[in-house]
């Protein structure tokens, strides 16, 4: 069996060491290296090409969001999980737009971190109702301003609507008679479209006469 390789970017020593310990203990994971700041990680990670990177959002100089944005194009197979101390929607949303694949609260039960990594490797990513609402808004704003735009499919819109109303993946799967896997795949596709659109950004609508 192939191990999932993990790198960590976290400025607080205690948390970094503990995350290292957790990763080392887990059977399916293989710890690669950890970094105190984004600058070092930016240099080393393209070489390492880990499967998963745990990134703290609040880092001393360059933030975790900028780090992900810069690494996304050179580490195309790497998944980024943002670690947050509080679920601050705005920040998480910008991280997702920059290319993060998921996020986890630092205070989630210890086994959740390992679960999140495993889940992410198999394509799942969480989306809270607030994030879903922001995603919907972002697609609406872009739709009016931009012609080169990846729009959402009917299904994806439906799933976003349920997510924004507080439904869990399981409930949505039951409601739409889909498998849990399919719901996860849809959510992953929504994230991808969001990232593509954020990168190309709203083009100016210049009228040519």
């Amino acid at each position, binding site marked *: 069996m192939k191990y999932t390789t993990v790198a960590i970017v976290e400025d607080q020593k205690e948390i970094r060491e503990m995350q290292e310990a957790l990763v080392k203990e887990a059977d399916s994971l293989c710890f690669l290296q950890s970094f105190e700041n984004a600058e070092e990680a930016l240099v080393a990670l393209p070489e390492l090409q880990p499967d998963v990177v745990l990134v703290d959002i609040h880092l001393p100089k360059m933030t975790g969001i900028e780090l992900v944005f810069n690494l996304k194009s050179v580490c195309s197979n790497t998944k980024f999980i943002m670690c947050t101390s509080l679920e601050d929607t705005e920040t998480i949303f910008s991280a997702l737009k920059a290319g993060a694949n998921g996020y986890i609260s*630092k205070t989630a039960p210890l086994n959740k971190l390992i679960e999140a990594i495993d889940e992410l490797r198999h394509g799942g990513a969480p989306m809270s109702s607030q994030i879903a609402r922001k995603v919907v808004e972002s697609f609406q704003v872009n739709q009016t301003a931009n012609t080169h735009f990846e729009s959402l499919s009917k299904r994806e819109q439906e799933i976003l609507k349920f997510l924004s109303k507080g439904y869990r993946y399981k409930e949505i799967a039951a409601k739409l008679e889909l498998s849990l896997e399919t719901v996860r795949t849809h959510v992953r596709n929504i994230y991808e479209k969001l990232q593509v659109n954020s990168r190309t950004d709203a083009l100016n609508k210049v009228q040519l006469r």
Partner: protein
Amino acid sequence: MKQFKTIAYCIYTFIVLFLLLCLQASYAVNKRYLDSVYVAYLHAVSDSEKMQCLYSLSYEYGFSNPKIGIQYGQQCLALAKLKKSKFHALNAYNGLGNAYETLSDYDSARYYHMQSLQLARALHDERKIATTLINIAITYKEQGLYEQALAYQLEALRNFESKEQYNPRIHFFIGQLYIALNNISEAERHSRTGIRKCKELGYYDAIHSLNLNLAICLTKQNKIDSAILLLQHSLQELKGKTDVRITSQCLHALGEAWLAKKNSEEALVCFQNELALQEQLSNKEGVCSTHLIIATTMLQQPNPDKQTALQHIALAQKSLSQLLHNKDALRDVYFKMASLYESLGHPNEALNFYKLYFGLKDSLLNLNSVAQLNELQTRYETVKKQSQIELQKTKLEAQTNSIKHKNVQLILLISVLLLTIITALFSYSRYRTRQQFKFMLEVERQEKLREFALIEKEQQERERISKDIHDELGAGLSKIALLTAYAQQKNDNQILSEQISTISTISTELRSNITDLVWALNPNNNTLENLVARMHEYAGSFLEDLNLTYSLHFPDDIPAIAITREIQRNIFLTFKEAVSNAAKHAKATTITITASYNSPQFMISITDDGIGFEHKKIKISNNGLRNMQERMNIIGGEFELHTSSSGTKVLLTIPIQ
């Protein structure tokens, strides 16, 4: 007979009133979109949303009411500068440029487009650089400065080519400019390149405009038959399409081609069709030149209808004001008018327009033109005398007729008076209501703005506090929660482990409370809809991890009614407490949660099949119950508790309007 006339006047009056109403209605429809953007602006929360709205307003008003467009553009620009957002400043400049273009103030428009260009270059946005170059070129073209316009268009083309992008209109613009500069071979080359590219890339709609250019080139090279074929083909394809502008241009070119073939009959049909389209577009400039060309064409016919031709010239004259910015075009029009009047036998008008034409062309009149003017002057004098004699004759006739027609005139006068009074009254009342409406809107707007300034301040404060809480408290608590959890997992000392466990639980709870607080402080979350979504989500994530069955019934159609933070907080905390009681203390195996909203009552019930509150082992405490009761009292809600040894039902009912 008299009765018949009165009825006819009545019908006429009604028709006029009806037309006025129609006009009003169409005006209202055009306004609706802008109003919705304005409302969006008033409700925009973040600065970037505001700037987006301001830009949309500035852009859209730029075409219908450019002065307002400029105001919004300036607002957007000021905000963008304040927020140091190059992207939005670029948008603002673009909006301003477009508005000034509509005002025909091309120098100002160009200034703003140049600013746009600088920013686009700073942002390395290749697409915007190219489109802005095109905008600048358009301003030059409108002023008749074709060489400069061409230079910018060519730069834009190079830009597109180097980035392997393409804009289907670019070859059309370049072709137009080359035609204006009389460089037909270059124009033809660009048209053909454009057609090839559009076919390759699938821009089929853009092909027609390129065909048009090509046809103009062909006409100028005397290949008239192929030009006519090409245009007829394009017009056939354009039938039923909404792009009226290109259709009118094609018609014009086709008319010119027929003229070159000396077929004035066909040409006239084309130009008359074109006139209808130009009027539909309310393109004054186009209307003017089309009238003139119709008049010219008419005079080329064997038996010209001079009266209609004169009417066309008079109509063209009405549209002249739109041409004032483009001296070259104006000069041409003056010349055409003068020669038309001359050939129609109106030397006095012709003289006037020749004067205007020479005044524009050159302040120093050459000998030739002086002679021409002198000749015209004499002809003018004779015609003047003749017309004076004519006038006196008609006056005499009129006097004799007037007595006969007095009765008819009286009726006519009264009807006209009546009509005028009705129309005046009608428009005055409309004017009054509109004025009042405007005033009310303005007052409302001012109030809103003041309100928004206050709200913004409060919001900033709130954001600052939640950021502080987030950064300081949140991070520390997270660390404690995480470390204790880990320590607990690693420790085998019984007593220490219990204590660590307590610390862990407390810090996790504290953190969760702070998360709730930060959530509640977010101004986006202040609706019932969002509260219900949060309760749904919380219940789902909380119960998912426990070993019990649960069913959640949250309706999808909860309205987005605004609620206060107090109501929000008290409902959520009570709900949390009730769910946690059911899950943790009641030893339940099944939990059912149902929410519903029937205006004005919001109801939530939490039902479990646990051991109930009367059981001795449960000491949740009267404290918890009292808390829930009190929270409901504060917000005017009801708290009901039904409990027995086979289960408990908590029912919360809160009035929300």
